């Protein structure tokens, strides 16, 4: 008789069924899970139960967000297919069903086009899941500096004004107390050419006109730069495990380099009358959709607001709300086609 085994590692869970025919293994990663409970909703054998996600997320309760009853689980993989954040994965003989055409897959994606990206890092900063890394290589500063300065040491009176004015700390004087044998206040003045950006503040502020500008490009200060020298290059990386396809990157990108496709369509309905402003929904939302905006400067407001542009309609907020003030409606569940009528039915029942 084939029976399941369960292994719990920290908060991660693994349920296995091994037979001479095949090995089925359902792996759950708690740090990826957002507490939406879709797995529990779709499970045809009621083997999955959503935990007390509010207590887990906000207090010291040290439990997994879901529990799996290995006696009820039949390792069909519906939870794995329906999980909007890929916290569950069913593998058949080590191959994930997410890579198998016969299994329906949620249609969701997040991409950053390296052709369009200007590496401004807005997405990296905005991403609520810290899933984006933008690695950029800045242009070499010296190649963008169009000239250099020369100090006429005979004219220079060692006043130190240029040293104090220089925004790049490129001018350094060797100050000393004057003595009868050396009645000067400085022994030398040097310009660090790596630091100087040729802004000419020093020349403009020099009281004795001891500083001369030498333009490398032209005599009129008109720049003739190689465009390649001014280009910032780089690469973008989205951690697919952390990404929940919320759309923040797409919204914030100034050059439309980020594109996000969401698996669910729907509506987020807030009931302000019922809301007690406990903030559990704000804490659980993986997409930074919900907030209590300040009503006046410095005062935390108590009117719940949602920005649905970033909502993935996962329903975690509805699960955690203690007073039923939030309703998440799912009107569409987009997935790749399946020939199985039962899978089609279970997936479409995620609509509310």
């Amino acid at each position, binding site marked *: *008789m*084939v029976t399941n085994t369960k292994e719990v590692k920290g908060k991660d869970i693994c349920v296995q*069924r091994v*037979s*001479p*025919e*095949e090995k*089925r293994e359902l792996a759950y990663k708690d740090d990826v899970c957002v507490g939406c409970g879709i797995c529990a909703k779709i499970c*045809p*054998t009621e083997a999955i139960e959503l935990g007390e996600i509010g207590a887990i997320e906000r207090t010291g309760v040290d439990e997994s967000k879901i529990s799996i009853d290995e006696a009820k689980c*039949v*390792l*069909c*993989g*519906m939870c794995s297919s329906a999980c909007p954040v890929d916290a569950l994965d069913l593998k*058949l003989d080590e191959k994930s069903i997410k890579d198998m055409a*016969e*299994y329906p897959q949620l249609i969701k994606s997040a991409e950053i086009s390296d052709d369009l990206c200007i590496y401004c890092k807005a997405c990296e900063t905005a991403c609520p899941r810290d899933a984006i890394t933008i690695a950029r290589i800045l242009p070499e500063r010296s190649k963008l500096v169009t000239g250099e300065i020369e100090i006429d040491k005979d004219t220079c009176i060692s006043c130190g004004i240029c040293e104090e004015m220089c925004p790049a700390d490129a001018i350094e004087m060797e100050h000393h107390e004057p003595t009868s044998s050396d009645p000067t206040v400085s022994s030398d003045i040097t310009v660090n050419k790596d630091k100087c950006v040729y802004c000419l503040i020093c020349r403009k502020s020099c009281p004795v006109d001891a500083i001369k500008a030498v333009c490398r490009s032209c005599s009129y200060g008109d720049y003739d730069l190689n465009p390649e020298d001014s280009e910032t290059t780089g690469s973008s990386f989205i951690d697919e495990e952390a990404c929940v396809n919320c759309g923040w990157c797409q919204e914030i990108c100034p050059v439309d380099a980020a594109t996000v496709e969401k698996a669910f369509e729907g509506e987020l309905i807030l009931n302000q009358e019922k809301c007690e402003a406990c903030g559990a929904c704000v804490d659980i939302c993986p997409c930074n959709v919900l907030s209590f905006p300040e009503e006046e400067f410095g005062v935390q407001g108590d009117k719940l607001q949602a920005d649905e542009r970033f909502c993935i309609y996962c329903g975690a907020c509805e699960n955690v709300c203690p007073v039923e003030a939030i309703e998440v409606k799912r009107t569409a569940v987009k997935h790749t086609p*399946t*020939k*199985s*009528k*039962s*899978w089609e039915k*279970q997936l479409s029942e995620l609509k509310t």
Partner: protein
Amino acid sequence: MPKHIVSGLKYLTAVELIREGLSQKEVAKILEMDRSTVSHYLNGRNLSWNSIEVAEIITKFCPKDFLTLTYALLNDSEKTRVIVKTCSKKSYEASVEESCIGCGLCVDTCLLNAIVLDDLKARIDSDWCNGCNMCRDVCPTDSIKILEVNNGY
């Protein structure tokens, strides 16, 4: 004496296969025996009549008991398949309803390897089904129906 019972079951299977028109050589190959042993079996030698009687009783058990006992005696799915299917007198029509979720529990359970998954749906080869109903019993969605076919026996 499990060994003797196995011999009895092999005897019954050999007799049936010969009746179906197979040669002694083919039977020997299927049952993984020497051809001479098959010949001895068919002549009633090297075999106590008692083990044949016991084997006959076993074949008349309910399909599940016949199958699981045979599997336990042989511990070999291929030979179990041949013996059980050859000695079973009844035919079955197995069908899977659309409510099947493709969990594969029936595939893993079927001792006769009669079930495969096809596009997230179990497909049962009725030719190999012996009506043990073990797949039906494990199915979490009650999607399997097995009917005995009245074929005159």
